[in-house]
């Protein structure tokens, strides 16, 4: 039996469903010094903005129980630097490149999407960053602004558009539905959960920008629920993200209905976590005599 792990978003083929998550993998090059990133299904870049952003004041991270808060604040050197310096190297990897974009306005999202159109394999629209004052998560917390961003980006793109949702809402599936209606080709979820951690000695937040976003295994049950709800609601592919640490977690996400998974904070515990997870998925499917992901996708049902 030949194992086929390939999956599509729109017309774009991914050789396997394991993606390196935005903001936890740089632009691929550093990780590639440690393992062969070309083996992954795709690499999602750190979110790119129109202008360079210096990011938030340190400390930017703090460990929490089974997870961490981060408030990087979308530090990046802007779209031009990305095109000149990061993209050429990224393109040398034999894997799909997904550019994550973050804007302050619909116009900025449009500009970014237009500039990147056909330069990369797909775009992930980050409307879920909890760590910036303007834009970011606020786009993903109102249905009408979500709709507006997605429509705007779709209007200027001919490559697949993935929308990355925030879990900091009452019913994330409603947002997924709006994205689908507005032409999104896939939904990825979740971005981080808004959180806080206090140093009781100094009486200050442990994060320079005060609040941060929670990631890691702590949030896995919440992300898995969000993915299950969303996959039941929309017809487009769902990309699961949030606390995927090993192949068991990955299979749980597939069984909840995800077509892909993104590996985020796991990379901090093991830089080649995504590759190990990919291997684990293959092994599991072989051991259980399952020939393709479709056979387990969304197999679990409420009873």
């Amino acid at each position: 039996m030949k194992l086929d792990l390939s999956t599509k978003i729109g017309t774009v083929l991914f050789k396997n469903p394991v993606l390196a998550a935005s903001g936890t993998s740089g632009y691929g090059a550093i990780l590639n010094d440690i393992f062969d990133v070309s083996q992954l299904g795709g690499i999602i870049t750190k979110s790119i903005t129109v202008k360079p952003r210096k990011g938030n004041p340190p400390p930017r991270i703090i460990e929490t129980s089974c997870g961490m808060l981060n408030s990087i604040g979308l530090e990046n050197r802007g779209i031009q630097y990305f095109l000149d310096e990061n993209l050429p190297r990224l393109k040398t990897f034999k894997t799909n490149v997904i550019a994550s974009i973050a804007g302050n306005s619909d116009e900025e999202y449009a500009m970014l999407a237009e500039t990147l159109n056909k330069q990369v394999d797909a775009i992930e629209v980050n409307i879920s960053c909890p760590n910036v004052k303007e834009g970011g998560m606020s786009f993903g917390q109102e249905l009408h602004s979500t709709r507006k961003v997605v429509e705007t980006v779709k209007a200027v793109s001919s490559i697949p558009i993935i929308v990355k949702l925030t879990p900091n809402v009452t019913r994330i599936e409603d947002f997924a539905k709006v994205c689908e209606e507005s032409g999104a080709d896939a939904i990825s979820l979740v971005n981080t959960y808004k959180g806080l951690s206090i140093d009781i000695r100094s009486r200050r937040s442990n994060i320079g920008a005060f609040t941060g976003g929670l990631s890691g295994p702590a949030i896995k049950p919440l992300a898995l629920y969000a993915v299950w709800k969303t996959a039941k609601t929309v017809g487009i592919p769902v990309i699961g993200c949030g606390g995927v640490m090993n192949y068991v977690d990955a299979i749980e996400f597939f069984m909840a209905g995800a077509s892909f998974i993104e590996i985020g904070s796991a990379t901090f515990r093991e830089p080649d976590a995504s590759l190990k997870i990919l291997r684990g998925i293959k092994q599991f499917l072989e051991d259980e005599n399952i020939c393709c992901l479709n056979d387990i996708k969304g197999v679990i049902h409420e009873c």
Partner: protein
Amino acid sequence: MKQVSTRMSKVRDYRAVVLSNRAIDDMVFLMELFLPDFDVPVIPGQFVMIQIDESYDPFLRRPYSIFECENATMKILLKVVGRGSEIISRKTENDKINILGPLGTGFTDDEKRYPVLVAGGMGIVPLWFLATRMKQKGMDFSLVFGELTASTLGEEIGKTFQEKVLFVTDDGTRGAKATVSDALPSIVDSISHEIISIYSCGPSRMMQKVIAFGEKSDIPVFVSLEARMACGIGVCLGCSVQRKGADGFVTVCKKGPVFKSDKVVF
């Protein structure tokens, strides 16, 4: 002495075995590790990310400077300050441990200048390694070591680097009764070299004073910084410190931990 390349050696997640681990002072442990697959060059000032154990609580690895490294044997000097270091300190012979490294830049030495190493407390770790290498090469240098009170660690430093070491203690139990930063001007005065460089690691306040002194006296200062880290390799941007004279940040794990003092504000 010529400019040594600080380009990062091949980074891997190495499986290490604990050869020995012993308390040398209250809460300070010297751990000897064997990394069977390790055969890359290491530069003093570089560090490793140690995985605490299999549990996700604590979640992140912890950064530790390389204390000594000869072929596949690496030493770590660890102070217990919280949960992570406490768990690592309990490892015993034959325990397995994952070591990601070698990471970051090391100390860049400048052969035209006389090296003065200025360490405060556990800040000794990268400077011990640097001093060891200098000693091996037969180079001359001075090592200023400051601590609160005379410790076994200080004694070890004295035994190993002999007359090269200048001690200061807050309580005067060994060497001058002073803080490193207070004593530094007179110490530097007493060194019979005109053109020196300072290599420093220790508490932030101490390093800031060392830098201030360096600026005033026109002495280049290299500091090794600490920051909370998640990835240790430059992909998370979690460990950033402020760039000096520019509006932006720089990663401690990738661009540092060793910086020329005019590059960063901390």
